[in-house]
């Protein structure tokens, strides 16, 4: 028996820089193993699932629960450092099981319709033009900050109905909350500022409803029931977080993929009908969420011959599943014409991403316009010097220095 596989250190800097080769080793024998995984708050002893088939099965398996209170207990029981305290946040649909999940999701579904998303299209196009207009022709810029992080936060602000003059605040709070570099105190300050602001905003929308999601969520009803005040707050807060870094990483990882695969970039320039498929391929190639959000076993679950006991933490690696050769031919090759779908970057099963249609639309708009406006894209540092976010949860670039030229 060799320990080569269980030795993979998910907390190491090296892992964050090159997860793919390590996941490939983990996938090799199809056995799930326990590792230490660090969430935003705490290091946990947890099972990590890396195979595509196993990942998809488990994402839809009701025995893998997200029920907030019991999940927090399971986290407590599996934390690496007994001294760590786990912060308790108000439950949202992402951290609940049916029937609560069903109700919350339907209430959001009533407000977050395809129609509402489609209505945002002209506005997103205009915003994208504005942001691209600020990229000076032929000069070095960091695409992560000028574009990738900027677009999604403005879009979420618009969708929710945050007045435009507060979008920058929104961006500051979100940045602090999503970063590993900010201290617990800084996070708490941002957290409080965001919640105070959202509470006020809900009150304002109650008094004067508008054509936005917060107003729609206030009104949304299923079987005569509405969202309670804490549910309203947690739903809005979830929307604000779930679509920020994820969408940003889709954009910057996609740009990098095209920089490194000029043949694929040329294909897209020649035939813009390939764009929707290309967005799916960018998502498959570098899943913005490395690991799914946290789950625990409500009862024992057998996975490929191993039994995971009850009350243990499980993470499903979407990044790894998407590179499984059993599902995708030449998984490490970027192929914008790839016919087979089924990447897991938006999850699978009841928690499948609510924002997927919006994210896809943002992707199509931004890549379409980037290709149109800039005939030549160059990376200004060698690709191996790029740094990936030091996180086992997200997969995305910290910075992407490029030079974009009209010709």
């Amino acid at each position, binding site marked *: 028996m060799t320990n080569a596989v269980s030795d993979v250190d998910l907390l190491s800097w090296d892992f964050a820089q090159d997860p793919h080769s390590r996941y490939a080793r983990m996938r090799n024998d199809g056995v799930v193993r326990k590792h230490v995984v660090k969430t935003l708050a705490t290091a946990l002893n947890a099972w990590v699932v890396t195979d595509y088939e196993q990942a*998809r099965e488990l*994402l*839809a*398996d*009701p025995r893998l629960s997200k029920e907030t209170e019991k999940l927090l207990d399971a986290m407590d029981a599996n934390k690496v450092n007994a001294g760590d305290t786990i912060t308790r946040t108000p439950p949202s649909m992402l951290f609940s099981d*049916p*029937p609560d999940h*069903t109700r919350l*999701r*339907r209430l959001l*579904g009533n407000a977050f319709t*395809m129609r509402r998303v489609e209505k945002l299209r002209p506005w997103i196009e205009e915003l994208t033009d504005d942001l691209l207009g600020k990229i000076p022709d032929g000069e070095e810029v960091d695409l992560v900050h000028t574009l990738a992080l900027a677009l999604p936060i403005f879009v979420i602000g618009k969708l929710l109905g945050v007045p435009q003059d507060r979008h920058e605040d929104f961006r500051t709070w979100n940045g602090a909350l999503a970063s590993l570099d900010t201290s617990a105190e800084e996070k708490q300050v941002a957290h409080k500022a965001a919640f105070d602001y959202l509470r006020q905003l809900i009150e304002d929308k109650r008094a004067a409803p508008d054509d936005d999601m917060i107003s729609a969520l206030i009104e949304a009803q299923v079987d005569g029931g509405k969202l309670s005040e804490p549910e309203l707050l947690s739903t809005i807060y979830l929307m604000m977080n779930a679509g920020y870094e994820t969408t940003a990483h889709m954009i910057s990882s996609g740009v990098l993929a095209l920089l490194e695969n000029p043949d694929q970039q040329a294909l897209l320039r020649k035939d813009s009908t390939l764009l929707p498929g290309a967005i799916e391929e960018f998502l498959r190639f570098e899943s913005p969420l490395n690991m799914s959000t946290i789950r625990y076993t409500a009862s024992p679950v057998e996975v490929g011959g191993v039994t995971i006991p009850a009350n243990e933490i499980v993470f499903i690696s979407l990044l790894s599943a998407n590179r499984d050769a059993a599902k995708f031919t030449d998984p490490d090759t970027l192929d914008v014409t790839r016919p*087979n*779908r*089924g990447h897991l970057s*938006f999850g*699978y*099963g*009841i*928690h*499948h991403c*609510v924002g*997927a*249609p919006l994210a896809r639309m943002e992707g199509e708009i931004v890549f379409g316009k980037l290709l149109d406006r800039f005939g030549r894209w160059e990376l200004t540092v060698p690709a191996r010097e790029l740094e990936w976010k030091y996180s086992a949860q997200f997969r995305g670039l910290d910075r992407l220095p490029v030079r974009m030229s009209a010709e």
Partner: protein
Amino acid sequence: MSGWSVEIDARTCIGTGMCVGAAPKYFQRKSSKSVPVHDHVEPDEDLLDAAFACPAEAIRVRDEATGDVLVPEA
């Protein structure tokens, strides 16, 4: 005749697996899409919940006695 009929429109299904996750008794995965396990079933609220949740409105549930379409809602 009593009971409900269940159909999934394979052209609109986008393979989210939400139905499979919500009601594995009624829905299963078939390559990258989902299909009903049975075309005819006894009335069950769990089935309706799962069908309502489909973001693509690809699931159709019909009351066979009256012919009424229960999901998607008009």
